[in-house]
């Protein structure tokens, strides 16, 4: 575990959420847990900012919300990736890939 925590660049939170939901429908808390775990605790999102992002994505039709029952038998709101959301994820991921490679190239210049 590293102590280095990185703040998210603007606009990448949406991409992370979409990526997390690409595996399976999830509720808000497990999305934040998943991102936290998968990034080896490097990425720390303020949990409160997750929800406005979820509502924004839902409004755009990239994810869909449904009420379901959680593993501890409580009512929870599950988010699903829609087809439009999947397309958006692909486009966003490839754009991010190009961006990060380009940034890495520039930074490695010596």
């Amino acid at each position, binding site marked *: 575990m590293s102590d280095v925590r990185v703040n998210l660049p603007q606009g990448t939170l949406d991409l992370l959420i979409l990526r997390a939901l690409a595996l399976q429908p999830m*509720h*808000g*808390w*497990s999305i*934040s*847990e998943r991102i936290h775990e998968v990034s080896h605790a490097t990425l720390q999102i*303020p*949990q*409160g*900012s997750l*929800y*406005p*992002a*979820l*509502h*924004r994505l*839902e*409004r*755009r*039709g990239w994810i869909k919300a449904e009420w379901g029952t*959680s593993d*501890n038998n*409580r*009512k*929870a*709101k599950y988010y699903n990736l829609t087809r*439009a959301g999947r397309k958006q994820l692909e486009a966003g991921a490839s754009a991010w890939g190009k961006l990060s490679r380009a940034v890495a190239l520039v930074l490695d210049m010596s």
Partner: protein
Amino acid sequence: MISELWSDIRYRVRALLRRNAVESELDEELRFHIERETGKHEAAGVPRDEAVRLARVAFGGVERAKDESRDARGTQLLESAMQDLRYSIRTLRAKPGFTLGVVLTLGLGIGANAAMFGIVDRLLFRPPPFLRDAGRVHRLYFAWTDHGTTRLERGTSFARFVDLQAGTSAFDTIAAFQVRRVAIGTGDRSREVDVDVTSAGLFRLFDAPPVLGRYFTDDDDRAPEGAQVAVLSYPFWQAEYGGRADVLGERLQVGNMTATVIGIMPEGFAGLDPRFMPAVHVPLTAYSFSQRGAAYTSMYHWSWIELVARRKADVPADRATADLSAAFERIWAADTDNVGPRASAIARPHALLGPVQLERGPQASRETQVVNWVGGVSLIVLLMACANVTNLLLSSAVRRRREVALRLALGVSRGRLIRQLLTDTLVLAILGGAAGLAIAQWGGVVLRQLLLRDDPGAVITDGRTLLWAALAIAATALVTGLIPVWQAAATDVAPVLGNAREGHAPPSKLRGFLLVFQATLSVVLLVGAGLFVRSLQHVHAMRLGYDVDRVVFVEARQRGLKLTRDEQLALDRRMLDEAVSIPSVTHGSPAASIPFWSNEGRLLRVSGVDDTERLGRFLLQAGSADYFATVGTRIIRGRGIVAADRAGTQRIAVVSEGMAWALWPGRDPIGECFRIGPGDAPCTIVVGVAEEMRIRSLTGDREYTYYIPITQYGEPVLSLFLRVAGDPADAVDGVRRRLQPLMPGGWYVTAQPLRGLIDPMFKSWEFGATMFLAFGGLALALAAIGLYSVIAYNVAQRRQEIGVRIALGATQADIARLVVGGGMRLVIVGILSGGAIAVWAGGAIEPLLFRQSATDPFVLGSVGVLLLGVALCATALPALSAARVDPQLALRAE
């Protein structure tokens, strides 16, 4: 992209409509998150309290997350607007008296406007329904110079209509039309309706396919005989035939024509004149032929139709006018009647194109001018209503200063506060507008029946009126909200909150100004009301030269069967004999000229005067020896007509005072000779002088009457005046029943009180007086209420000060004087400025008055006194309450 937009809209609509569900879902979702986070820490062995704290910290501000989620929904602005709305409605419901007062005040203002707009729009702006290319359709006017004055006519003859069609090239259609009262049907079912006599071309101007059958075409409308066909209006078809589809082919008696029904007009079609709703349309040629035979085609003097024309699309209006003028001048020059002073070099005939709306053209009626004034007045009333509401809002705003300051201190933005205040006034204005439309619906029907004869229709379903009302509502909300908003925006938080007392509201200079404004407008409107009422009094008091309220006018209308001149003369005699044998009829006489109905003028020649027409218009009246006793016209000098004046005896005449003065100034007219008609007409000797008789116009000068014996007149008139004992309205039915059996063939008798012919002449003054009085009264009431509320409010504000004054020895009278004086000063300023405006604007309204100066000191003085009296009453109540202030209580309340 589209699907994204669609999802967006769906999402926002749900967020908006199911706001509560969405909110509670958000709550639930966030609670779940924090519980899970807490559970995670607890599972790691953290105690419960600490676990909750850690979860909260990790989450951040819950309210902020909620707010941002709401923002993410994209409905924030709308939601806050709805919140404002709910808040407004709650506040207004908490003050039902205030709300009701404001809504009624605005309702009257907006209602008055909507009702007047409906009429002004109909008369001036809206083109006739279904008219195509209204901008290119013109009414045609013809002008020429006659004895130095310009005459302007829109009536013309069939012969000239044909010549103009042949002689112009600027128009794709010239159509002729005229609405006439014509008897339709036969037997018991016969009655008079408005019949539109038109050339076939008229239908080409409209985009109105018949609902059934067809319209008449140029083939049906071919001179001279035409085809006896009729097109029915939709309401007539519904009322008379129950909307039966097999009505086509049926026969309908229309005047002298037996017409075949060939089509039905669409619903709402009213022709070219909004004052009429013709029941039947018949071809011009067929109708003319039924009236005058084939000779009508060359009767240039039978001037009874009006023309309307559509310019070709590529011809500008000035070229079309020149084209029409040239054609008119050629016709004028070719007409052999037009010699001497009527030669075209002197008469300079020319034509004008006017708008298709008659009342916007050069011959707008006096009624329309009055309507325009009243329309302006209704705007003033709305303005006054707004001033009152602003006043009420200001006093409630002063009470809300602390609330406003508190909200500002709590961080509510000023923008939000202003939105809230405007929402208040908008809600009030919309409620007022709803009340106003209800008032307009009722008032509009009354007004239109007063002014227009068309289908009154509904105000609340008329798009243009609704649009106008919506504009009025929006303007009202802005105008009434403006000042309170400005005051709220300028609210300084600290002093208001820091000071426990509210007594330090700034002295209401603004409200004083509003009061002066209201008093000014009230004075202007009431002066207008006074002027119209006085005009109406003058008109009613004016002696027309006959007894309007004792006389019945009887007319035999010919239809079908033609009678020779001698047969008609015999019918005249039989009618008179039968009529005077009715017990309630005291006197009777035939009459050749009927006031405001028909009149006859003939060329007069007097030795020593080369052109009598230059001196005035001389109208002929013919009657029996009983004529003067029948109508009540007074003989001033000499004698009247006697039974001995017969066909073979010396021709005699009684002339009016004005005629005597015009033809023989300074001389005794009795014994003078004048000749009636051209050529070698014999001398007619003046035997008496009588009162002037108003026949053509109430205001018209240089119109004179002479009276000759009916026996020497020699032509059938088919008209009778009967003097009855009692009310003429009660006598008409009996007269009609007694005379109808004398009628040959399809002929029929009409009988009506003479008053019925005169009253329409008074319409503009009646309308002006009624509307100015109604609006002036409304304005006065608004001003009084405004004054009362301001003074009462001030008294409440100054209770302590008044208490101190009383404690220091002021008497009750002193206090009352103080309060009343404050209000009266404002009102007196208003009276002076209103009087000044009324005098200044008087010149513009004077032509619409009747023998009434616009700066009548009596009217101005009465209005001033009235306003002072009302103001005194409005201030007296608060003054009394001020005088009763108990100094101990007032001071202790500190």
